[in-house]
């Protein structure tokens, strides 16, 4: 009986002490002590953990590097393949955009029949402005047929073989196109140059022309159909001593980026050379 009382008292005292300690701890009276203890424990835990991770890394790193290298090589190969695909797709998108623009152009100009051709080369002589296209007499191409893009006039077919043709650009120094100025309602002669610049010649002195005037083919001479856009006047040179005014024309077509062109196949050029008087 005495033992039972003593044990109950001990238990009660222990509970009271533990409860008191907990109450003091919850009340914040043991803060500095518990902080110091917990900090030490955490530091110790951190030290053990870091050493363990270091040892683990040391033991497992070679295997991981090898597998990572292999994985990296696989991913690099995949990236290279995807980049090639992206380039290919971008090229296809570019070609599709050009073709879509050309289709729009042919729909907007139903009076002409067009045949699309890819530019596959440039004349080896730097003095001449000619390109090679991948359509020839097998496709019904004839010498003299005009060549355009959705932007405007490019030139005309100069020579034809079975599956390819050579096109003389309007920028060629030997090129001469009869044009008219839309706003001034006058006709002039557009000539190319060795540098690729376009000049308007034979503009009467009494005519007022302005920068920005649109230049279109006139159809005179039978070399080109009328009303094909050529470019815009950007610079006018007028001298009283000259018989005619001159102007520089900015072409609407970017001749350095010609990729796909349209050949007007229902236009038959007229050869007027027998009618021209001999010099």
């Amino acid at each position, binding site marked *: 009986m005495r033992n039972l009382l003593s044990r109950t008292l001990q238990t009660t005292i222990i509970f009271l002490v533990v409860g008191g300690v907990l109450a003091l701890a919850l009340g914040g009276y043991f803060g500095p002590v518990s902080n110091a203890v917990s900090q030490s424990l955490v530091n110790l835990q951190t030290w053990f953990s870091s050493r363990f991770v270091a040892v683990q890394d040391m033991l497992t790193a070679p295997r991981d590097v090898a597998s990572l290298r292999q994985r990296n090589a696989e991913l690099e190969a995949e990236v290279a393949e995807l980049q090639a695909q992206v380039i290919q797709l971008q090229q296809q998108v570019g070609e599709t955009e050009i073709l879509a623009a050309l289709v729009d152009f042919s729909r907007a100009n139903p009076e002409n029949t067009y045949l699309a051709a890819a530019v596959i080369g*440039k004349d080896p002589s730097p003095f001449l402005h000619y390109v090679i296209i991948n359509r020839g007499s097998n496709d019904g191409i004839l010498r003299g047929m005009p060549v355009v893009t959705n932007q405007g006039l490019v030139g005309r077919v100069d020579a034809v073989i079975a599956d390819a043709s050579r096109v003389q650009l309007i920028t060629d120094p030997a090129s001469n196109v009869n044009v008219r100025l839309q706003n001034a309602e006058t006709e002039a002669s557009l000539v190319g140059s060795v540098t690729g610049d376009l000049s308007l010649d034979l503009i009467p002195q009494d005519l007022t022309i302005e920068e920005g005037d649109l230049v279109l083919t006139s159809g005179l001479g039978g070399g080109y159909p009328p009303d094909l856009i050529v470019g815009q006047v950007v610079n006018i040179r007028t001298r009283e001593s000259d018989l005619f005014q001159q102007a520089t024309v900015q072409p609407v077509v970017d001749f350095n980026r010609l990729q796909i062109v349209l050949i007007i196949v229902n236009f038959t050029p007229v050869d007027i050379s027998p009618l021209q008087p001999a010099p």
Partner: protein
Amino acid sequence: MRNLIAIPVIILSVQLQLSIVSRVPLLSGTADLPLVMLAAWALQDGVETSWHWALAVGVLVGFVSAIPFFVPIASYLFVVFIAQLLVSRVWQTPLLAMFIVSLIGTLFLNLFSLGTLRLFGIPMPISESIGLFVLPGTLLNLLLAIPVFAIMRDLARWVYPLPEIE
């Protein structure tokens, strides 16, 4: 039989010229790959077919280009003539000979083209043409001369193997 390699090599050089080299200008001048290739071929030891190559390249370029056909034929034959002239004189420094032949050949081709086009009535301002076309084209040909010479030397060794010395 190995001489038949001339056919694909010549066609390839003209195709590369049309599709790539002509589209990479410096100012307005471009390199002339067939000319450089021909110069390199004509300077190789033991090569006996350089005149044939010159004629073939000239005819092909004359056919493709809008320039009068006799201009490339005469120019490429002249390149081989210069190479044959130099090969016996500066044989110890073939690269120097290559530069000289490329330089003279390019100048001849460009000036001959310029003169012919002017003769045909096409307006060609001389100073502008030299500054924008002839000089940049010459520089590009000289740059092209080194790699082309190395390739053609290997090709010449394959077509005309050196006799083994015992």
